[in-house]
């Protein structure tokens, strides 16, 4: 296949990111023309079309081999501060598919609310930042793109401004976010002090010869890891997650817990794999993969145990999202100098893609339940399947897929992740992950049991069918199912993209 970059100018490699940003601007322009009317259909349509176009371009680039080893390697732009390669395109695909589903679902969720254009443009601006996070090749771009993703998210969490829970969640998210941004910036400055560069490639070559400054470099690396732990909702910066996901409008919870988390992992994968190579830093005593191994175990155990004790379904999903951050952290934990690192990280990337569909779908189902005003606890879901069998079937798919049961996408992605961890010699990480998965089946099946087996406590008054929400939930369910047969090519793409980072 002819390399793509010989046909198009090099800057078009960031076209997926530009498309997301452009869609946000178009939404603002449409709202400027006539601010007083809401036009929900047009706005949701523009947002969905924009994200689908991004998905198409990013998917096309990924299949055509743009920036991958087959066609000349990563494309560096602006002096290396932006890098387009398999990893960035892969995560742009994840973010764009989540945004498409969330925009589709928001059409019904936002009905009769004001400030709809602002909602969609904030979602797309955050998505621009998330897609940029995957492509940042310098610590400066890492910080800017992380802020571009975070700032709209704070506003979106507090979008229901008459709702106390939403405002409180927004404030907590903002405060924890501000602290962790400060920690991240401080870490970046320490790494800069020790290595004299912000470019990841230069940091990698200079960090080995830090000499006396090894302590500073070590503290800097730990602080950068802390900043990413916030974005991925991992311990020790996880405690905003349950509040924010529960208080936020449910489509935003879906967006944050899937796309934002995936973007956080994208940037963490690149910074740690490219910037701080294990071969160079482990002999200096900075073993960040051990740090991530501890974080992974604590995060998945804490997330799963906390999820098992919840009575509120949305809060249960929020804690399960923390648990899944622990599984994905295996991609950073089960690494060693010279081990099959690309395979482990690739399996983690593939898990995040599958998670993007199943978790978005689960939160969008919650959005539908909120739209119906059914209630929030497990008991309120009793017998829901008698009234809405199709939606409950989709939710069952999401729950069993999140738990990692066959025959759904989540089974293969978890299996691949644990298998690769064992191949890398980290059988204990895989064992903890498997035990946690078994535990998670308990609380996921509670939802299924409530919906299908329990008798309804009262009459449901569901009203008209929310078409957009239904369509988005169905798309997510079909995606979760299709990722089972399609998992082979997905994981191969992810693993070759991740292997390129370690080369």
């Amino acid at each position, binding site marked *: 296949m002819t390399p793509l970059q010989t046909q198009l100018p090099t800057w078009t490699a960031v076209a997926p990111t530009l498309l997301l940003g452009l869609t946000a*601007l178009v939404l*603002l*322009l449409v*709202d*400027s*023309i006539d*601010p007083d009317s809401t036009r929900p259909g047009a706005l949701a349509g523009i947002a969905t079309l924009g994200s689908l176009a991004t998905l198409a371009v990013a998917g096309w680039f990924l299949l055509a081999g743009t920036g991958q080893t087959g066609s000349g390697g990563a494309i560096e732009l602006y002096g290396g501060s932006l890098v387009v390669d398999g990893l960035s395109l892969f995560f742009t695909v994840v973010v764009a598919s989540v945004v498409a589903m969330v925009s589709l679902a928001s059409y019904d969720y936002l009905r009769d609310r004001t400030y709809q254009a602002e909602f969609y443009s904030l979602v797309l601006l955050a998505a621009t930042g998330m897609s940029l996070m995957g492509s940042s090749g310098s610590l400066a771009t890492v910080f800017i793109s992380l802020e571009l993703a975070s700032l709209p998210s704070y506003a979106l969490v507090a979008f229901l401004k008459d709702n106390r829970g939403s405002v409180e969640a927004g404030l907590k998210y903002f405060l924890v976010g501000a602290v962790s941004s400060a920690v991240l910036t401080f870490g970046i400055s320490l790494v800069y002090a020790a290595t004299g560069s912000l470019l990841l490639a230069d940091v990698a070559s200079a960090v080995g010869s830090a000499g006396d400054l090894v302590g500073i470099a070590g503290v800097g690396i730990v602080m950068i890891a802390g900043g990413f732990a916030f974005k991925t909702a991992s311990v020790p910066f996880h405690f905003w997650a349950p509040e924010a996901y529960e208080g936020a409008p449910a489509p935003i919870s879906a967006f944050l817990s899937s796309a934002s988390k995936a973007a956080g992992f994208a940037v963490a994968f690149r910074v740690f794999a490219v910037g701080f190579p294990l071969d160079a830093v482990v002999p200096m005593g900075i073993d960040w993969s051990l740090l991530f191994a501890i974080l992974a175990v604590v995060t998945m155990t804490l997330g799963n145990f906390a999820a098992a004790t919840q009575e509120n379904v949305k809060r249960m999903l929020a804690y399960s999202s923390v648990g899944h951050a622990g599984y994905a952290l295996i991609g950073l934990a089960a690494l060693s100098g010279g081990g099959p690192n690309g395979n482990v990280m690739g399996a983690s990337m593939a898990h995040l893609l599958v998670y993007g569909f199943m978790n978005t779908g689960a939160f969008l189902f919650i959005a539908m339940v909120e739209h119906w005003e059914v209630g929030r606890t497990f008991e309120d879901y009793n017998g829901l399947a008698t009234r809405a069998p199709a939606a409950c079937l989709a939710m069952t798919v999401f729950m069993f897929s999140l738990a990692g049961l066959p025959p759904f996408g989540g089974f293969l992605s978890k299996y691949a992740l644990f298998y690769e961890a064992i191949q890398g010699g980290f059988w204990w990480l895989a064992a903890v992950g498997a035990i946690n998965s078994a535990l998670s089946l308990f609380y996921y099946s509670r939802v299924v049991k409530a919906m299908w087996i329990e008798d309804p406590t009262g009459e449901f008054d569901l009203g008209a069918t929310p078409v957009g929400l239904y369509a988005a939930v169905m798309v997510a369910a079909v995606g979760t199912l299709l990722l089972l047969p399609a998992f082979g090519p997905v994981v191969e793409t992810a693993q070759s993209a991740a292997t390129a980072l370690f080369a």
Partner: protein
Amino acid sequence: MNQWIAIGALGVMGVGIPIAMMVVSALLRPSVSEQGKTVVYESGEVPTGTAHVQFNIQYYMVALLFLVFDVETVLIFPWTLIYRSALEQGATLGQVLAPMLVFIGVLVVGLGWAWRNGAVEWIKSPRASRRKTERQS
């Protein structure tokens, strides 16, 4: 000698000198009790009300819009400095001009949106206008 001793000494001096100055002047100065010294502003301005007042939220909108122009200026300045020399060294007009036009275009879209949505309209609250009429009568 450990170099941290020097830093510690600097810290001791930095805290010690101001305290010593205040103590010495308190010991030396004559104590003349005068009412004028106890007021908030010795220039004679008599403060009215407390300092804990709520500012109108619309000032924050103005401040946010100001940031648009502020950041714009910060980034245009270095650009103007390299503009001529970049052209002389063979960059095309499009290469030099287009990025800045795109940047300003993005800001204009945002400003236009804020303008259309009434961010620059000063809305008087009913309470404020009522108070004004009370004062006039």
